[in-house]
C-alpha cells in the first residue's frame, strides 16, 4: 500500500527523516519491535533429534537387532551373559555421540562461513552514511542503492537516478524495470508495475537511488512467498556423490561376503549364534559408513581454514574444483596491482625532484587527511600519487598553500589535457600547469635548470621527448609540470610556460604477486591477465609479473572480436594478456580455455561479470570492490581482492582433495584388512581371530580418529610442485584401488599372523588379544604410511 502514498506521507508514517535517517535509539527500538531483517531459517534440529537420527542407518539397525538376538539367546540358554549385547549397545551409543559432535563441528564451521558472506546494506543513520549487515535494516531506515546491490528490504523510493531493477525473483520478468519515485499508484497495481517501490532480494542493475524501508524480514513480498525460502542445505560435492555410490557398491559386496562367511561357518559347525554375531560385526566393520561423514567434516573444516585466509567459499563443490584449477584469469587493477598510483620516476633538465613535486602538488585538487596517524591524499588517483610522493619528501600542499594562496584555476578538460592553478606569491602571481607531456611541451618556451630559466632549444626538447618515450615504454603514466610568473591572475594564458620536469607513475604490482605467478607456473597453472586497461600498460605489468613471457601473446578486445570462436579455441593457450576487454569477451575467453580441457578460475567484480563468473569452473568475486550480484554469482569471494589469495586457495583446495583421498585410502584399506582377517581365518580353518565386539570397537571407535587426522593434515610442502589433477580422472585414479587392496590384504594377513602365533603358542585368548592389538597398531602405522608421499622420517609439512 506504500505505493499509493506520497513520499512525505511515508516519511511521516515511519517517523523518519529522508536527509538524516533514523537515530540510533530509534533503530534499537525498532530492532526490538520488528526483529531481524531476514527470512525465517528452517527450524534447527535439537541435539536430541540429531542423536536419534544417528540410529537411522541400516548397519546400526542391524547391530541393534544383533544385540537383541544376543540378549534373547543369553536369556534362553540360561547363561545370563548379556555382556555382548550391552557392549554392542554401548559402542553404538558412543558412535552416535561421536557422530553428533562431528556433525555439530561441521555445522558450526558452515554457519561461521555464512556469517562472513552475509550481505550488507548502505543506510543513512544519525545523518551519516554507514554500511551495516542487511539483517540489521529496520523499517524507516533510509537505504542507499546503487548498481550491483541487492535490495535489502521492501522500500518506497524517495530519490532515483536512472534506477533500473531486475525483479525476476518476484515477477519472473527478466527485463529490468525503470523506477520512478514521483508516481503515485492505485492500490491494486501488480508488483511488476509498482514503479515507486523496490523489493527485497531484487537486483539493482543500473543507476542509484534512496528509499525508505517499509517492510523487513518475513513481511517483505519475498518473505510472503513461502516457496522462495532459501534452501539451507549445502549441495553435495562430486566427491560426496562418488562416495555415496562407492559406499553402496562396497556395502552390497560386504553383505555378500558376510553371508558367505556365515555359510562357511555353519558348514564348519561353528555355533550359529557366534557365527551370526561375527558376520554382523564383520558387516559393520567392512562397510565404510563413516566415509561420507568424514568427507563432510574435512570439507567444512577446510573451508573455515580458507575463510581465515581471506578466501570465502560460497559453494562447497568449489573446494574440489579449486584443487584442479589449471588456468587462473585475473583482473589486473586491484587484484594483480595495488589500485593505487605511485610515482616511480621523475625527469628534469637540472631541476631538483623536490621542485617538480612542490609545483606538482600545488597544481592538484587533492584533499589531505590523516589516516592511521599518517598524512595522505584523497581524490583523483594520479593527483593523489603526486601529493603522496611530495608528502614523503615532507612537502605538504596545505603548508605551501598558506605561503602561496591559490587564487584561481583552469580545471582539467580532456580537450586541453591540462590543468592550471594560480597562486599569489608575495607581490606577484605564479601559474602552475600540469598535463600530458606532448601537449604541455608545445606550450613551453623556457626550462628551469635548477637556478635560472633558460631558452628551450630543439636539443633540449628532443632530450625531454626521449625521456618521455622511455617512461611511456615502461607503461608509466607521465605528467609534465611547468610554471609561469604573471601579474594578471584573472587572465591566464597557458602559453610561454617554463618546463620543470616529468613525473612518471604507475599502479604497481601487489606484494607477493610475482612470486605467486611463479608458484602457479611450477604448479602447472597458467596465469592470464584480463583488463579493461590499455594494452601497453597491461603488457608492461604482465612482463614485470612473469605472466607475459617470450612466446606469450597479448591481444585487445577489438582484435578478439575479429577472431572466430573456433580459431580462438585453437590458439587460446598462446594468449596471456587480454586488454581493453568487455565483460562479454570474458565469457568467450572462459569458454575457449575450457574447450582445451582446462579448469578455469575467473575473477570479476561488476554486475556484467556475472555470466563469466557463472561460466567459469570457479567464479571468484572481489570482496572489497565487488558488487553483490558478482558475489552471488561466484563460487568463492576474495575478502582482500588479492591474487596471492587465489593461489593460496588453490593450494588449500589441492590439500583438501589430497587429504580426502588419504582418508578414503585409510578407511577402505583398513576395512578390507578386517574382512581379510576374518575371511581368511575361516578359510584356513582357524578359530575366529576377532570377536564381534572386538571388531566393532576397532571399526566404530579406533578407525574414525586417524581418518579425521589424515583429513586435516597440513599442506604438504610439495603440493604446488605438482601439475593440476585431471578433472576427468576418478577419485581412485593413479592406482589407488590396487593400493587399497594390496595394503588392506597386507594388514589382514599380518593380523592373522599375530593371531596364529598367539593361538599356536599361548592359546586362543592370547591369539585374539595379539590380533586385536596388532590390528590397532597396524592401522596406526598404516595411517603414518599414508600421511606423506615421502618417507615418514623426512616428511615435513609447511
Amino acid at each position, binding site marked *: 500500500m506504500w505505493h499509493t502514498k506520497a513520499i512525505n506521507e511515508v516519511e511521516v508514517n515511519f517517523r523518519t527523516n529522508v536527509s538524516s535517517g533514523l537515530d540510533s535509539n530509534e533503530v534499537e527500538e525498532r530492532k526490538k519491535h520488528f526483529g531481524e531483517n531476514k527470512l525465517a531459517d528452517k527450524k534447527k534440529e535439537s541435539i536430541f533429534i540429531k542423536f536419534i537420527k544417528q540410529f537411522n542407518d541400516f548397519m546400526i539397525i542391524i547391530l541393534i537387532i544383533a544385540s537383541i538376538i544376543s540378549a534373547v539367546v543369553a536369556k534362553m540358554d540360561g547363561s545370563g551373559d548379556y*555382556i555382548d549385547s550391552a*557392549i554392542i549397545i554401548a559402542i553404538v551409543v558412543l558412535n552416535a555421540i561421536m557422530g553428533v559432535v562431528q556433525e555439530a563441528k561441521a555445522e558450526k564451521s558452515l554457519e561461521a562461513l555464512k556469517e562472513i558472506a552475509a550481505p550488507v546494506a548502505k543506510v543513512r543513520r544519525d545523518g551519516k552514511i554507514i554500511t551495516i549487515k542487511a539483517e540489521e535494516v529496520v523499517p524507516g531506515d533510509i537505504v542507499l542503492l546503487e548498481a550491483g546491490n541487492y535490495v535489502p528490504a521492501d522500500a518506497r523510493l524517495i530519490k532515483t537516478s536512472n534506477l533500473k531493477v531486475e525483479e525476476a525473483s518476484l515477477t519472473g520478468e527478466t527485463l529490468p524495470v525503470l523506477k520512478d519515485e514521483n508516481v503515485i499508484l492505485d492500490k491494486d497495481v501488480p508488483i511488476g508495475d509498482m514503479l515507486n517501490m523496490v523489493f527485497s532480494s531484487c537486483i539493482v542493475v543500473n543507476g542509484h537511488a534512496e528509499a525508505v524501508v517499509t517492510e523487513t524480514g518475513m513481511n517483505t513480498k519475498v518473505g510472503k512467498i513461502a516457496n522462495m525460502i532459501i534452501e539451507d542445505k549445502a549441495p553435495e560435492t562430486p566427491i560426496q556423490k562418488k562416495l555415496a555410490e562407492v559406499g553402496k557398491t562396497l556395502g552390497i559386496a560386504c553383505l555378500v561376503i558376510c553371508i558367505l562367511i556365515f555359510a562357511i561357518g555353519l558348514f564348519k559347525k561353528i555355533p550359529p549364534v557366534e557365527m551370526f554375531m561375527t558376520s554382523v560385526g564383520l558387516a559393520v566393520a567392512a562397510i565404510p559408513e563413516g566415509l561420507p561423514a568424514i568427507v563432510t567434516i574435512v570439507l567444512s573444516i577446510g573451508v573455515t581454514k580458507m575463510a581465515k585466509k581471506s578466501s570465502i567459499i560460497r559453494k562447497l563443490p568449489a573446494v574440489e574444483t579449486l584443487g584442479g584449477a*589449471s588456468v587462473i584469469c585475473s583482473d589486473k587493477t586491484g587484484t594483480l596491482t595495488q589500485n593505487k598510483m605511485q610515482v616511480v620516476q621523475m625527469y628534469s633538465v637540472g631541476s631538483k625532484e623536490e621542485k617538480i613535486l612542490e609545483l606538482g602538488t600545488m597544481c592538484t585538487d587533492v584533499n589531505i587527511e590523516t589516516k592511521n596517524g599518517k598524512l595522505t591524499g584523497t581524490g583523483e588517483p594520479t593527483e593523489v600519487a603526486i601529493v603522496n610522493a611530495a608528502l614523503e619528501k615532507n612537502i605538504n600542499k596545505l603548508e605551501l598553500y598558506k605561503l602561496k594562496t591559490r587564487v584561481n584555476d583552469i580545471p582539467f578538460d580532456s580537450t586541453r589535457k591540462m590543468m592550471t592553478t594560480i597562486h599569489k606569491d608575495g607581490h606577484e602571481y605564479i601559474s602552475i600547469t600540469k598535463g600530458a607531456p606532448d601537449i604541455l611541451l608545445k606550450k613551453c618556451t623556457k626550462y628551469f635548470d635548477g637556478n635560472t630559466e633558460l631558452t628551450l632549444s630543439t636539443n633540449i626538447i628532443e632530450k625531454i621527448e626521449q625521456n618521455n618515450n622511455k617512461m611511456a615504454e615502461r607503461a608509466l603514466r607521465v605528467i609534465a609540470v611547468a610554471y609561469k610568473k604573471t601579474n594578471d591572475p584573472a587572465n591566464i594564458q597557458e602559453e610561454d610556460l617554463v618546463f620543470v620536469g616529468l613525473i612518471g607513475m604507475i599502479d604497481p604490482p601487489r606484494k607477493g604477486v610475482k612470486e605467486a605467478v611463479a608458484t602457479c607456473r611450477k604448479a*602447472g597453472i597458467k596465469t592470464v591477465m584480463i583488463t579493461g586497461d590499455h594494452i601497453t600498460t597491461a603488457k608492461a605489468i604482465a612482463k614485470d609479473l612473469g605472466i607475459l613471457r617470450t612466446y606469450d601473446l597479448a591481444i585487445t578486445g577489438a582484435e578478439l572480436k575479429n577472431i572466430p570462436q573456433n580459431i580462438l579455441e585453437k590458439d587460446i593457450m598462446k594468449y596471456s594478456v587480454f586488454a581493453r576487454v568487455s565483460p562479454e569477451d570474458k565469457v568467450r575467453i572462459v569458454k575457449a580455455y575450457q574447450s582445451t*580441457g*582446462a579448469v578455469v578460475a575467473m575473477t570479476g567484480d561488476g554486475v556484467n561479470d556475472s555470466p563469466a563468473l557463472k561460466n567459469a569452473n570457479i567464479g571468484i568475486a572481489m570482496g572489497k570492490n565487488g558488487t553483490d550480484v558478482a558475489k552471488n554469482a561466484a563460487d568463492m569471494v576474495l575478502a582482500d581482492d588479492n591474487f596471492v589469495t587465489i593461489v593460496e586457495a588453490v593450494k588449500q583446495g589441492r590439500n583438501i582433495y*589430497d587429504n580426502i*583421498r588419504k582418508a578414503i585410502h585409510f578407511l577402505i584399506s583398513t576395512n578390507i584388512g578386517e574382512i581379510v582377517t576374518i575371511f581368511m581365518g575361516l578359510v584356513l580353518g582357524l578359530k575366529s581371530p576377532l*570377536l564381534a*565386539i*572386538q571388531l566393532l*570397537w*576397532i571399526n566404530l*571407535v*579406533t578407525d574414525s*580418529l586417524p581418518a579425521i587426522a589424515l583429513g586435516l593434515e597440513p599442506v604438504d610442502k*610439495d603440493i604446488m610442485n*605438482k*601439475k*593440476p*589433477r*585431471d578433472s576427468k*580422472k576418478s577419485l581412485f585414479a*593413479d592406482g589407488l584401488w590396487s593400493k587399497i587392496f594390496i*595394503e588392506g590384504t*597386507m*594388514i589382514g594377513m*599380518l593380523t592373522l*599372523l*599375530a593371531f596364529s*602365533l*598367539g593361538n599356536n603358542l*599361548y592359546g586362543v*585368548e*592370547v591369539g*585374539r*588379544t*595379539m590380533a*586385536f*592389538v*596388532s*590390528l*590397532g*597398531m*597396524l592401522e*596406526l*602405522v*598404516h595411517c*603414518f*604410511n599414508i600421511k606423506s*608421499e*615421502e*618417507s*615418514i*622420517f623426512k616428511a615435513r609439512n609447511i
Partner: protein
Amino acid sequence: MQVTVVIIPQIAGIFKLVPLNKAQWIYTIIISFIPLIIVEIQKKLNEIKFGKVIYKHECQ
C-alpha cells in the same frame, strides 16, 4: 585407545582380552611395524624410479 583397552584389566575383561607378557608384546609390535618397513622401501624405490610419486597428478 586400542592399547588402553588391553592394559586396563576391567575393560580388557569386557572385550574378552587377556594381558600380554613381554614376549607377546614384542611379537605384536614386530608384526605391526612390518608395513612401515615395506612401505618405506616402496617409497624409496618410487623416489629412485620416478622422483617423488605416490599421489601423482598428471599434467594436462
